[in-house]
């Protein structure tokens, strides 16, 4: 499971957690989030502008 962050405000979409309030239950793949879904915190950037979070082992 991986995460993507909003390049404007830093909100992180984590696939494990999803965003239940927005209708993305835990485990919802980021690929299944609609492209025009705006950042739920700032609304400045859309899903397609999000960048993957780099994970160190």
């Amino acid at each position, binding site marked *: 499971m991986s995460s993507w962050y*909003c390049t404007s*405000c*830093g*909100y*992180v979409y984590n696939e494990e957690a999803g965003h239940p309030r*927005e209708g993305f239950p835990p485990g919802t793949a980021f690929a299944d989030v609609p492209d025009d879904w*705006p950042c739920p915190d700032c609304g400045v950037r859309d899903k397609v502008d999000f960048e993957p*979070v780099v*994970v160190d082992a």
Partner: protein
Amino acid sequence: MEAHAEHAHHHHHEHVDVNPAEWTDGKRYAWLLGIVVPLSPFFAWFYWSLTGVGAFWFIGPVLVFVIFPLLDMAIGMDSTNPPDSVLKFLEQDRYYRWCTYVFIPIQYGGLVFACWMWSNGDLNVVESIGLALTMGVVGGIAINTAHELGHKRASSEKWLSRVALAQTGYGHFFIEHNRGHHVKVATPEDPASSRLGESFWAFLPRTVIGSLRSAWGIETTRLDRLDERHFSRHNDLITAWAMTVVLFGGLALVFGPVVLPYLLVQAVIGFSLLEVVNYLEHYGLLRQKREDGRYERCLPEHSWNSNNVASNVLLYHLQRHSDHHANPTRRYQALRHVNEAPQLPTGYAGMIVLAWFPPLWRRVMDPRLLAHYDGDVTRANIQPRKLGRVLERHGRPA
């Protein structure tokens, strides 16, 4: 395993290593003046009791539409910014939050007091209308407080935002503003971005109806994803409007149905005050469409700003509007003046009054907008119905 996101600065446990002694906030205690407006019905009562002059019940509109524009002219501007190094320290200082929280109990204390005056207070009709206008101004300024709170991530602040909106029945604002306006700002698709050639009086019904429809669309899309019915307690619009119904119903039960017409008048005045501020924030400004069909990102050049001190204190730095659109979750005390942002000739308070008189508005603002686009009117957001006339007046010969 540790996750990094370069910008993931909202995951609260960051160490703040700024020496706050390096810088002092000149506006720190000025923010307390934000409660002057919700206190205004009490001021009105005090001076009316003292002098017997009924005109004091009109104190709210006089304060915001006369005294604050004059204060802007007298006090002038302040474009100083907190240095980047203290922004985080400034944002985490809870004092500034309490300045906004305290607004809400005073707001509702005033509303209950107003209902008591309308029902038992020995006011004549003109005085009662004056009090309704004053409460409308309080309700409109309360939308500004709700705006500050509604952008925050904490659910407690989002809830306070909805409470502050109940007085004007504008509970849909916290959805439409954050998820609609901020996404579509300065495009023809945004009901709350005004257009060149569009008067405030044409904008008002378009934004009121358009924002309502947009909010409903955003919320029902969310409910569809959740597989919930549109008309249910899961609908944040319905629960927000229910707060208003309960509030007005409760006040009518306690004080009698005589308060209802005044409550309705003050609600309309209140949300119209918000909408006139919407009118002047993005007048004629347009984000260009990129080759892939999406709009360019909202930039500082897409909002009208002002550094007038009096209006900035009244409205929690709302006039530093470009920084607000770049960083919507940033707290008001940390918003910055941006050099590239187009500047209004005076503060929002004075511009509100100007907006009520479309010929004056056009005379002041259209040349500024045109100058902002280096004389190229085609780069502006133009009212479609007025396109021919605007091009005829301002267009360059081909």
